[in-house]
């Protein structure tokens, strides 16, 4: 197998894609319910802070049509990250308000006569409970400031998607429609995925990674930052090894697995980490199916089945790892102790189906058996029961919504995997079935309205690009349906239009009009029989 050199290092986008855009500056002395407004070019921009000191921003055109979009931004780490973290860079905690996904979308909505509003939230990290309260207060402030307001719709991404779904469930009278995008769902499955991934990296590649159970205070912060360094050092080593010898890449020097296990290519261990965590096998630049045309025909199948999936796992694990460390540190602080427990996890059972699908990438039965033996023999992580109980109180979704909701995510999102959206869809399906059964029991023959529209963004069949020399090109934009919250302006605006329709009509867009809307936006799929894989926490 030839050697490959990436055109550049893998782009680690997890946190940058989660971070908000700086849309407006924050007033230094904002007071609750007392926005400071300025008007220019027929657009009024107001800034202020809710009673919890969370800064907010409102943008409303002179021809305001009465409908406002409340946006909830995604997860921002609650601690700064030093600039020297390899492969990651630095981060400064910010609570800059964000009233929409990006400036282009905000501008387009305002130009259509809509208002937009969003908070920066008082606390960063996992902040669902406080953010929900902030948003409810913010809606009141907006209505008071802009008395022409007739309808409020809510949308958000990632953690903001979680918040949006919760608002829809808990405040049906406040909102006319909701769109949780690339949403996070229940916190326990999310942290299980993060914990499994970190524990897998630790077990295979660097046992000095703590992966959780961080100390309190400054010591815990230092441990988490140390983990970031170690995780990205291991990933960097793997990246270099993959590029040098994709067929049999070396193990990182920090790995302490037995030499016999190191006879298995390290790429297979990384694929194992992805599969057992539930991280998808299509990434921004690797489709798990393409091979360079310059390879001999006999080697192309091997690349398709074994090498490309390993690169996909590398790219996705890299994108998920940063958030895994930072969110684990954050939530342990909030819960009061370790929240990840894998003392009873059977990782071999976790991949009982995937082991056939990805057999070549896992180096066959021998590879699977060897890697599984390492997982089975390695010390497990034990959670603090009180912390686990506390974690569960940090919010989950019931799936019970009465207002129209629109769910949309990339099928190969490596951070908030598609199983998050699926779990909410499943809960709503159960709720709807219960309502229908109750209606029939009461002699009602009309089915209850189905107020949930579930949309998916599927990656293309093939999208990995190779140079003339056969090296994979990772400089291209991420493929649609991959990466975290990787949406186009057209898709955002299609969602916005559908929200407006739902707010006006009390039901989601359907039929031919929906088809047309989705087709024009591109890469938005409605397939009521599609079900994304459940998160591994739920069993498969």
């Amino acid at each position, binding site marked *: 197998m030839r050697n490959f050199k990436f055109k550049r290092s893998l782009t680690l986008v997890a946190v940058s894609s989660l971070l908000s855009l700086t849309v407006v500056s924050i007033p230094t002395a904002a007071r609750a319910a007392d926005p400071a407004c300025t008007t220019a070019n027929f657009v009024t921009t107001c800034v202020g802070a809710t009673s919890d000191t969370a800064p907010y921003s409102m943008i409303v055109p002179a021809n305001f049509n009465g409908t406002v979009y409340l946006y909830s931004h995604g997860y921002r780490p609650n601690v700064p990250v030093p600039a020297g973290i390899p492969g990651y860079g630095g981060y400064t905690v910010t609570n800059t308000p964000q009233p929409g996904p990006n400036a282009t979308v905000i501008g387009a909505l305002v130009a259509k006569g809509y208002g937009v509003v969003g908070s920066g939230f008082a606390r960063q990290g996992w902040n669902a409970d406080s953010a929900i309260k902030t948003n409810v207060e913010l809606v009141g402030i907006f209505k008071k400031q802009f008395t022409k307001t007739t309808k409020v719709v809510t949308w958000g991404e990632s953690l903001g998607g979680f918040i949006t779904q919760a608002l829809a469930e808990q405040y049906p009278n406040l909102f006319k429609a909701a769109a949780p995008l690339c949403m996070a769902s229940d916190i326990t499955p999310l942290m299980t995925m993060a914990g499994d991934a970190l524990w897998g990296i630790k077990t295979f590649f660097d046992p000095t990674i703590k992966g959780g159970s961080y100390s309190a205070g400054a010591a815990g912060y230092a441990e988490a930052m140390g983990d970031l360094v170690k995780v990205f050092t291991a990933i960097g080593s793997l990246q270099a090894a993959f590029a040098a010898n994709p067929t049999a890449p070396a193990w990182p020097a920090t790995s302490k697995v037995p030499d016999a296990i190191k006879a298995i290519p390290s790429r297979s261990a990384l694929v194992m980490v992805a599969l057992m965590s539930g991280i998808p*096998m*299509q990434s921004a630049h690797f*489709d*798990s*199916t393409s091979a360079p045309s310059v390879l001999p*025909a*006999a*080697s*192309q*199948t*091997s690349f*398709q*089945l*074994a090498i490309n*999936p390993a690169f996909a796992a590398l790219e996705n694990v890299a994108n998920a790892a940063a958030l895994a460390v930072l969110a684990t540190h954050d939530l342990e602080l909030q819960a009061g102790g370790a929240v990840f427990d894998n003392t009873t996890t059977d990782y071999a059972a976790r991949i009982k*189906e995937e082991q*056939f*699908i*990805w*057999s*070549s990438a896992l*180096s*066959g*039965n*021998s*590879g699977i058996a060897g890697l599984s033996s390492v997982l089975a023999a390695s010390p497990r992580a034990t959670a603090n029961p009180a912390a686990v109980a506390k974690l569960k109180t940090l919010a989950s979704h019931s799936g019970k919504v009465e207002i129209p909701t629109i769910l949309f995510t990339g099928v190969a999102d490596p951070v908030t995997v598609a199983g998050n959206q699926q779990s909410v*869809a499943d809960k*709503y*399906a159960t709720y*709807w*079935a219960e309502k*229908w059964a109750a209606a029939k029991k009461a002699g009602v023959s009309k*089915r209850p309205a*189905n107020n*949930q529209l579930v949309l998916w963004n*599927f990656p*293309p*069949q*093939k999208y990995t690009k190779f140079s003339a020399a056969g090296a994979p090109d990772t400089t291209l934009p991420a493929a*649609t349906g991959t990466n975290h919250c990787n949406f186009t302006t057209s898709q955002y605006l299609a969602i916005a239009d559908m929200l407006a329709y739902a707010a006006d009509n009390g039901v989601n867009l*359907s*039929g*031919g009009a*929906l*088809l047309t809307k*989705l*087709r024009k936006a*591109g*890469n*938005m*799929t*409605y*397939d*009521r*029989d*599609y*079900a994304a*894989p459940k998160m591994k926490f739920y069993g498969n």
Partner: protein
Amino acid sequence: MIGKTRRKRTWFVAAVLASGSLFATALPANAETGVSASEIKLGITLPLTGAASPGYNKIGDAMNAYFKYVNDNGGVYGRKVTLIQKNDEYSPQLSIAKTNELILKDKVFALVGPLGTANFTAVHKSVGIARRGVPSLFLNTGFSGFGNKKDFPTSFTILPSYAMEAKIAALFLKENFAGKKLGLVYQNDEFGIDALSAFRNAGVKFDVSIPYTSGTQSAATAQTWVSQLAAGGAQVVLFFGVTSATAPLLAVAAGAKYAPQWILGSVGSDPLTLRALGVPVAVLNGALTLAGNPSPNDLNDEYIKVFQDINKKYNTGVAFDDYVLQGMNVGLMTVQALRAAGQNLTRRGLVRAMENKGSTFASVAYSPLAYSKTSNIGHTGYYMAVMDATGDRKPYGGSVVLYTTDSGNGPVVKSTFKRPAIPAKGLPTNS
């Protein structure tokens, strides 16, 4: 999913996953996807290109040839059968995308003959074959796991499982090669899981055992296999893998003048394909193989004669080998299944027809079919064959001695099963 309880909706939306294109179809009442007054649309995914494609890439065209023959003779209750082939390059991820195309864009009624264990496992899970109620008939894989009717309620195998094959091979080894040094080369995935388990249960121990990971087969890797086999002194070597691995193994062994008694599994033993891939015919002479079907050259067999005639007219210029035979036979069985499901064709009706009548279908293979309400398993047995100096396959010992068994702990028994006759002119009339 809520949608499953709302079948009466008058609009239906589906999307082509790759392109994002969307299609709307207004289905008339009681109509079934992929079925019109004049046509039944079926689909198959298989490797049409790539290292794994030799031989497999003939199956779809052979099925199509048979369907054209049936169509020219009135179709199935007047409906033409159309088969849409999709090239998955043997990549599971691509199988998912291609199957989604078949179901959502092409709107096929059923899948027939999808190929590959990893591929169908991926498809079944990610596309949601059972959830959608899409019949998947005559899977071209011997993985015993697909015999779990609870997990695969709309899928039906056709080949005897790898486990059955290994059990029969084990008995043959014990009866004929006791005391010899045994070697095994096997594909290190579900192939191996099934085979190794069966050999272990049968008490067969191999002196040299060599796994290979699917996709890694090449002349270079075959060199290491041959070196290990020769160094271990293996006198009888059993091969359990695909043709693209058999070929380099036999070719490299010939070059090294290593000549054990070869026993080839059914999957990787088509002589014509092996010869096309560079295996000297002299190496094949005397090689033993497990076989479920008669030789594709046996013109005394009524099925072979009919299928060869169809191949000449509808698949012109394509050499008639085991893969063409398999494709033709899947076509024959598909038409019987469609007929058994009745004129008011539905997906549920087709699954019920397979369960209720599938075991009676005519098939070229010698062994019984095990379809029932509780079983989605197709053929259940093999006979031993030996290749001659032309590469042709003849029954070992001069006549077919059929062994049948199951994928579990059941015994291997000699069978007296009499294969049903081929329908007149190869055109089923069952109902």
